[in-house]
């Protein structure tokens, strides 16, 4: 195997983990945000149990992506975490509250108890999506970095119209993804009700997507530079458009799982556009992009470490995929409440 560009290989591995997280936990977050729209306790339990067996494992993709970043690109990990101190703290509290809400809500019968956790579950899911979006938006836009790779900007510099836009796009994306997932996993009256939520979600997503794309092309043309240089990459955008267009088509045909697959393809394409557009930067220095940006080459671990990591991934990832599939296979089909359900 040609290991000359091992940084690129490990960077791809990192983005694959991130895409895995967005696809898998994306629908958990979407279901979480939709949770309050259903008023009946029985329906809420069905929605909760649609993600019940898998949300924990889905979250692990983020944990492992974090580990992959720490190991492969310590400087990027360090700069990113210390620069986005507040968004990450908010993200972490969101993750804690979501876990608590899922685990605690059905353990007491009181109506107020369940309502409290339902609200927290929804809010936590929303906050997780928003803070992920803030980080993502700032990575596209760039942050102020000095020559020691340290963040020198202020907290307020992280919040501006563009990062809000990306943040809302992230919410819209997971909202749509979650709506499709929940339609796929339910049946009967609830299913029919949920089905009506999908189209508004798709429209909202497309609006956000179009706006974000326009804003990106106008204000951050560096994101499309590489596509100008290598037109073949334009195909990602084409595939993405077909995938998005296919979602309402499959929903109308009643092939919910194909709509879900399309939605997954959409997420992969979005992640690819982001990764390709920022390459080789991961953290762009807005003050001097050409010299101060953290690229996958100036911030990587040694080749020895990257080779070790690659070996770990080659052994580990097939195993991970195998039991992820096994678990989804065992819990396939429509959700039914049982004695062990949440």
């Amino acid at each position, binding site marked *: 195997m040609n290991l000359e560009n091992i940084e690129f290989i490990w960077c791809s591995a990192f983005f694959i983990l991130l895409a895995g997280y967005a696809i898998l936990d994306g629908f958990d977050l979407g279901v979480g945000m939709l949770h309050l729209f259903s008023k009946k*306790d029985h329906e809420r339990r069905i929605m909760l149990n649609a993600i019940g*067996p898998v949300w*924990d*494992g889905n*979250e*692990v993709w*983020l*944990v*492992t992506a*974090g*580990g992959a970043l*720490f*190991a*492969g690109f*310590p*400087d990027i*990990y*360090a700069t990113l*975490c*210390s*620069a986005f*101190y507040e968004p*990450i*703290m908010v993200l*972490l*509290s969101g*993750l*804690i*509250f979501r*876990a*608590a809400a*899922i*685990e*605690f809500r*059905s*353990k007491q*019968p009181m109506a107020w108890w369940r309502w409290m956790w339902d609200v927290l579950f929804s809010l936590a899911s929303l906050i997780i999506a928003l803070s992920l979006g803030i980080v993502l938006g700032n990575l596209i836009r760039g942050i102020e970095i000095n020559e*020691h790779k*340290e963040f*020198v900007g202020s907290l307020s510099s992280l919040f501006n119209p563009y990062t809000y836009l990306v943040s809302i796009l992230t919410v819209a994306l997971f909202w749509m993804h979650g709506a499709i997932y929940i339609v796929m996993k339910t049946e009967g009256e609830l299913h029919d009700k949920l089905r009506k939520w999908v189209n508004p979600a798709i429209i909202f997503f497309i609006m956000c997507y179009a706006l974000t794309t326009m804003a990106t092309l106008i204000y951050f043309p560096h994101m499309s530079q590489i596509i100008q240089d290598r037109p073949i990459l334009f195909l990602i955008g084409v595939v993405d458009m077909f995938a998005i267009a296919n979602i309402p088509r499959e929903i109308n045909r009643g092939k919910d799982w194909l709509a879900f697959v399309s939605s997954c393809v959409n997420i992969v394409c979005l992640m690819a556009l982001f990764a390709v557009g920022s390459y080789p930067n991961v953290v762009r220095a807005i003050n001097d992009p050409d010299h101060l940006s953290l690229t996958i080459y100036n911030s990587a*671990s*040694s080749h*020895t*470490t990257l080779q*070790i990591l690659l070996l*770990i*991934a080659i052994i*580990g*990832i097939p*195993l991970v995929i195998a*039991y*992820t599939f096994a*678990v989804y296979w*065992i*819990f396939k089909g429509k959700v039914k*409440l*049982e*004695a*062990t*359900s949440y």
Partner: protein
Amino acid sequence: MDVETLARFQFALTIMFHYIYPPLSIGLGLVLVIMEGIYLKTKNPLYLQMAKFWTKVFALTFAIGVATGIVMEFEFGTNWATYSRYVGDVFGSALAAEGVFAFFLESGFLAILLFGWNKVGPKTHFFSTLMVCLGAHFSAIWIVVANSWMQTPAGYHVVGEGLSARAEIISFWDMVFNPSSMVRLAHTVIGAWLAGAFLIISVAAYYILKNRHMDFAKATLKIGLAVGMVAVILQAVTGDASAKIVAVHQPAKLAAFEALYHTEKGAPMQLFGIVNSKEEKVEYGIKIPKLLSFLAFNDFSAEVKGLDQIPKSDWPNVPVLFQTYRLMVAMWGIMTLLLLISIYMWRKQTLFANKWTLRCLVASVLCPQIANQLGWVSAEMGRYPWIVQGLLRISEGLSKSVTANQIISSIIMFAFVYFILFVLFIFLLNEKFKHGPDEQDVWTPYYQLQHYLEENE
């Protein structure tokens, strides 16, 4: 307060809270494997009931363990960015391995363990339980390896100078099998077994005291006592081995544990006492001559390095470490004594009538928790002033872009969130234990309460 103190405080707060849960997951994981294994072998439904009951408790500890664990992973970067840059090349690969090999295994099969009772056959279910238990143990392996590398670094070289200096891996296996990693791993995992064993012992003793679920309680108690007994014996061995490694590789830490201010041949062992750090001596203590030299080096007249060999500014906090270390050992002593008494009384068939012993067993759940916490406090505070022993100081590892105010606000947030989480955890656990392992209502569903909720809608 300065950034260093705050960052250390925050790390201590979040890691100590986190460290309540993973040991319970590891210990309960082992217990679950034993219970379900016995069920598969004997087909006695009692053991299935036990496995199902403890699975629910496992789920609760696991969820909080994961939620608080993610915090730890990102905290390296948020508060200790310079440290992360310095060690990422070495430390990161252990964390990545943990994610890939341990967390996915654990969380994937957890779904089947918790929700798969009616979806897969008993053998597949047992296999899933086994994998969850294995995953929990794997997660301990990688994080303890990473932590041990900070105590006794090996398999690396330092590249660059000044701000851009960092440790890079030379040999992955030398890093993994650094001098202290395997012994500390064994010590940690057995500590976790004790946490699991004493939780089930405590609950079983509670039921026996209340004369409820007697068959369930006796069978649970038997497993708990057996696991606990094996664990305390092994813990003595690994504890001794761990101290010997500390003696060789981190003499300052050992000297702080023992408040040994002056290098001595045939050093004595202080059983207890109070350290007077001003006059550099131990007061109100009793010591056994030459024992420390023997325990550390297998030689009654061996020289044990004292704190006088180290610049005073680099001394760890001796008065605190002296006590935390002793309390940890004392907890081991209490656990061993309790186990011996209980097993003896069980054989004499007087255990179930002896209320005081049972009450002690109920309270004993705290012993392994205290021991685990104090063990880590000793291990990590003993490393002071180094964040990576001999390579990088704690003060050098901080994030340069993070201010005291940011850390204070996150400390307040974590303190608030964790306090709520802890209260709820204890409340729900207590409800679960009071309710007992009855088959009809297994905690989450609310069959009897369905009407109540429908009326309220």
